[in-house]
């Protein structure tokens, strides 16, 4: 036991003496949360809209006022001809154009049927989609108000309710994703590097000749990064609750335990990578290219897995972060308990066990 403590102390010396790396490890998660939470939001606010109002009546005027009043749009320009529409898009001064045809008010009130055309700049399809959705919603609201006034018997109003995240706050999506990324990066990359460093420096041989058991070397390497990860989990959660206003709806204890499980999984993965690589560069390369990229792409955090081709959907199952991401969303955002995430938990536990077993086995083989 004393040997174990001596070893862990040494590891902390390595970590604390490398100030630059330590700084990155502790500050990176904070910066990422802030960037993802504020800058990379997929909400669209104050988009420029241009209006071609042909009808120019009371109805069209109040609809335009409604659009302009919403926080999503800002009325950029009133257009006077169809030709100007194309021009607006080419200049990039409007993302959306609304065309209100002749006799809008009359059609609406007398025939109970009016049309409005929305033209969007779909060079960025996601933004275009979001904008048309927002505009449709505003138009629907407007329509509802008018029909209320007139008490028409048959109107179908679709009512959309966004569950768990009524404001469609982008941070709800990013916080679980960033947690997965940060933990994976710190634990996997750093443990892999620290072990390979010993191989490069030649100190690993000395350790292997010493009475230290290989398992002990491997575990002692992992402990400091586990501690560091817990600090990061706490700081990410504090930031997201207090700054990004993402609530922890479920059990905090469960969330922490699941995060520690994911950390252990990442640590074992790092140990596994270190047993396969001989230099720090190759450890870094394997961690980043073979692990980090698939995690970003296939965990469901950037791109929805449901929309992927079947092959990719199947591959996504071997990405540990996918399961953790599901767990965090379920526990943190939806507020459900272990009964809903036991499958994911088991999968993560299984992966941890598998990686650790292979890593320790490979470590021993090198001795024989």
């Amino acid at each position, binding site marked *: 036991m004393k040997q174990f403590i*001596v070893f862990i102390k040494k590891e902390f010396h*390595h970590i604390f003496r490398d100030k630059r790396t330590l700084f990155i490890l502790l500050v990176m998660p904070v910066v990422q949360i802030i960037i993802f939470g504020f800058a990379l939001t997929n909400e669209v606010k104050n988009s420029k809209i241009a209006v071609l109002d042909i009808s120019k009546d009371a109805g069209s005027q109040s609809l335009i006022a409604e659009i302009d009043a919403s926080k999503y749009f800002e009325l950029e320009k009133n257009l006077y001809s169809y030709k100007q529409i194309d021009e607006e898009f080419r200049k990039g001064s409007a993302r959306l154009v609304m065309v209100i045809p002749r006799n809008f008010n009359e059609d609406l009130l007398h025939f109970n049927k009016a049309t409005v055309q929305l033209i969007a700049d779909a060079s960025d399809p996601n933004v275009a989609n979001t904008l048309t959705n927002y505009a449709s919603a505003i138009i629907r609201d407007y329509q509802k108000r008018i029909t209320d006034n007139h008490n028409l018997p048959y109107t179908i109003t679709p009512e959309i309710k966004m569950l768990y995240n009524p404001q469609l706050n982008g941070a709800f999506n990013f916080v679980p994703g960033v947690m997965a990324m940060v933990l994976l990066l710190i634990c996997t990359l750093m443990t892999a590097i620290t072990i390979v460093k010993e191989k490069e*420096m030649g*100190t690993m041989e*000395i350790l292997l000749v*010493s009475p230290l058991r290989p398992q002990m070397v491997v575990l002692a390497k992992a402990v400091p990064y586990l501690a560091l990860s817990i600090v990061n989990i706490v700081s990410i959660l504090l930031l997201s609750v207090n700054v990004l206003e993402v609530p922890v709806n479920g059990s905090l204890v469960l969330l922490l335990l699941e995060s520690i499980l994911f950390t252990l999984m990442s640590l074992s993965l790092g140990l596994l990578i270190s047993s396969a690589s001989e230099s720090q560069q190759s450890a870094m390369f394997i961690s980043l290219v073979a692990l980090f990229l698939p995690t970003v792409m296939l965990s469901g955090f950037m791109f929805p897995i449901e929309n992927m081709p079947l092959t990719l959907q199947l591959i996504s199952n071997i990405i540990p972060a996918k399961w953790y991401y599901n767990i965090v969303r379920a526990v943190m955002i939806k507020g459900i308990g272990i009964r809903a995430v036991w499958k994911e938990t088991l999968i993560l536990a299984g992966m941890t066990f598998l990686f650790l077993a292979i890593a320790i086995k490979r470590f021993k083989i090198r001795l024989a």
Partner: protein
Amino acid sequence: MNEIMITTEKLTKKFGEFTAVDQISFDVHKGEIFGFLGANGAGKTTAMRMLCGLLLPTSGKATVAGYDVYRQNEKIKRNIGYMSQKFSLYEDLTVKENMKFYGGIYGKSDAYIKQKTSFILDQLHLNSEANKLVKSIPLGWKQKLAFSVAIFHEPGIVFLDEPTGGVDPVTRRDFWKLIYEAADTGITIFVTTHYMDEAEYCNRVCIMVDGRIEALDSPGQLIKTYNAQSMDDVFLKLARKAVRVDD
């Protein structure tokens, strides 16, 4: 000088078809400085790794400090010290911390570590550098420190794998003084080298060619037997027979 510390009998290591070490047999006595010579790829590092418990032999027998290399690996590890050609110390730890760490992993008590540390610092005149990071001290000191760390836990045998690579002749001679001091306290020294002037410092040398032991005797006797001017000469005569080239 009669207690046997290392003994091997037809010790062999094969990697697939390749026989790295081919049926070597020798004994090393307590307090002896035993030199292991050979060109690159002659198999000296492989032989040493088997004795240290880093590699399992393919066949043959060997005991180190009285323990069997197949079955009593853990006991061997407690009784040997090892220094590699990289002078493996932790560069981002201080001189003191390195000693504390190595003492600690051998399970030594705090009192032992403290007393031994101050002894070594005095012996190497390193007191003023005790709290400096290892990366800031000169190579020659690092090398002596690495040796002192390898025998920190007072093992019966210390294995030195080309310990003097990359240092100048004056530093090398200083280093050998340390080795003699250690041998005087009864520590057995097993050293691989390809510097022939160093071979002459050894009590006995064993010359390996292509995985086999080609000659084993005291340097003086070898020079006589091979009718040579110096160890250099002996080595060249023997090494010319080599078929294998490099590793």
